[in-house]
């Protein structure tokens, strides 16, 4: 183990350089020292593991190839040690595909991967990566900051109508018209503020309260949708339905009731089915979904490609819409691997006669790539984030398909949405 002392007034803390090559160690350690780090070098997975277990570091560079072993097992260790906030710069001579996978591995472990640098090392990029301040995680994401929420609290929240709905527009990519909206459940708890769905959805699943939430969201969304549909015929409103909802044989009748109450045609409603929990009872799901489809309600397979049994569900259930997950669609303009999945998903959807919806369109270059791939519609921050009902209604009124959103003149929609979201 070597150590290189900082050589500046400004101190940045301790840098762990995991690298087996003497030359690279020296370069990285020296750059680190000049930036104000005390660098410690580890040349093997073992010594790096020991250091990570026993000492505290403020930054780490990691070469992926360490003798016969590799750096990925260290990423796993860092996650196991709950060092998720440790900023990591990965350095590797491997091809882009492998680096992309490493990025995904780090994301899966929820690690603070700052950058992936390829060899030969670009010294300027290394310096920029090392001075980049550690990104701060939102407090709500930290395990420790999560409030303990029991079943009674959620039952009360459902009764008090603390749950409400935000709408994210779906855009027809060819005409640039708003063709529908996805209704997203939100929870405003007086004592916690806005609680993230990433926190409350698993709890609701766990407590077996999903049917109650789905009913509430569906009722609210259809009520809002009825006004929007009058304004814009052909508009569809989408609600999320989980695997556990599809085990409920009364769902088609309950949805029927909601549609009748608000005088909305079944064709204007789409249920989006996620496989967040495996559809354990495919027989029941087929029963429920076929009855919904017979009534004319649309069905979308949500987050396609990320679930347990996407292809099996696609083949067995009567979906008429396929939603390409944002992990694929959102990066398809920059990541060729993702583009291949997007193209295959669109081809698969066409084979089944389904429409495609891309999630996570945040940039005009992504929109262009998806249009070229033949995607029908999409949603994402390029058009608008999820909006409160009133904001959504004014977005609909102001929306000008010729002037905004559509590539290449995509920028105005971003500004307009930002103004709306703040207003």
């Amino acid at each position, binding site marked *: 183990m070597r150590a290189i002392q900082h050589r500046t007034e400004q101190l940045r803390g301790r840098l762990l350089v995991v690298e087996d*090559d*003497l*030359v690279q160690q020296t*370069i990285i350690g*020296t750059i680190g020292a000049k930036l104000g780090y005390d660098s410690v070098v580890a040349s093997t997975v073992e010594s790096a593991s020991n250091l990570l277990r026993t000492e505290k570091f403020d930054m780490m560079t990691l070469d992926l190839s360490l003798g016969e072993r590799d750096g990925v097992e260290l990423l796993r260790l860092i996650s196991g040690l709950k060092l998720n906030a440790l900023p990591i710069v990965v350095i590797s*001579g491997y091809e882009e595909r492998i680096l992309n996978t490493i990025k995904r591995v780090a994301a899966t472990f929820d690690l603070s991967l700052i950058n992936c640098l390829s060899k*030969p090392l670009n*010294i300027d990029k290394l*310096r920029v990566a090392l001075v980049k301040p550690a990104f701060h995680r939102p407090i709500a994401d930290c395990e420790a900051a999560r409030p303990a929420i029991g079943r009674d609290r959620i039952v009360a929240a459902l009764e008090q109508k603390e749950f409400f709905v935000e709408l994210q527009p779906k855009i027809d990519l060819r005409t640039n018209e708003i063709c529908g909206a996805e209704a997203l459940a939100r929870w405003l708890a007086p004592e916690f503020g806005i609680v993230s769905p990433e926190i409350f959805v698993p709890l609701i699943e766990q407590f077996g309260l999903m049917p109650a939430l789905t009913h509430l969201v569906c009722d609210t969304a259809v009520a809002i949708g009825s006004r929007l549909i009058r304004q814009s015929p052909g508009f569809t409103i989408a609600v999320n339905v989980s695997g556990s909802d599809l085990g409920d044989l009364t769902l088609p009748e309950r949805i029927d009731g909601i549609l009748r109450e608000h005088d909305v045609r079944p064709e204007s409603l789409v249920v989006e089915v996620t496989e967040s929990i495996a559809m354990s009872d495919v027989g029941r799901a087929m029963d429920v979904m076929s009855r919904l489809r017979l009534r004319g309600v649309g069905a979308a397979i949500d987050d396609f490609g990320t679930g347990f049994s996407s292809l099996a569900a696609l083949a067995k259930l009567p979906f008429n819409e396929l939603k390409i997950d944002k992990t694929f669609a959102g990066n398809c303009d920059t990541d060729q691997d993702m583009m291949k999945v997007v193209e295959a998903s669109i081809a698969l959807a066409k084979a089944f006669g389904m429409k495609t919806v891309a999630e996570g369109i945040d940039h005009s270059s992504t929109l262009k790539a998806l249009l070229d791939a033949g995607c029908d519609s999409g949603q994402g921050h390029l058009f608008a984030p999820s909006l409160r009902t009133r904001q959504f209604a004014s977005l609909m009124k102001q929306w000008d398909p010729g002037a905004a959103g559509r590539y290449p003149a995509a920028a105005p929609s971003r500004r307009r949405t930002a103004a709306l979201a703040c207003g």
Partner: protein
Amino acid sequence: MTKTVSFDESVFCELGDELGAEDTAMVLNTFLADTANRLLRLEAGGEVRSAIRREAHSIKSSAATFGFGTLSQVARDLEAGAEAMPQAALRESVQELRRAFEATRTFAQDKLLNPLSGAAA
């Protein structure tokens, strides 16, 4: 065979700008010593193919960091063929790497280290 040394001065200058003359000389000396050791191991011929590939990979990356194009390219060829090349071709490839290294070392000492030590003094 390898006579001339292709050298990307802009890459080397960037390193020099970041590290300063003294540290650049130190890192370059580290590289020359480390690569000389790696070559001795390669020439001894006792290493398994995967180890040869890793040695070549290291030389390729480090040489490119300094802008030593020829040396990096020859190391890249050895890395690519290390696992599959017949024994004779492998020996030839290691000899080629030795020639590229000697040319690079001479170039580095005459054109880079001497002026650097002048600048640092």
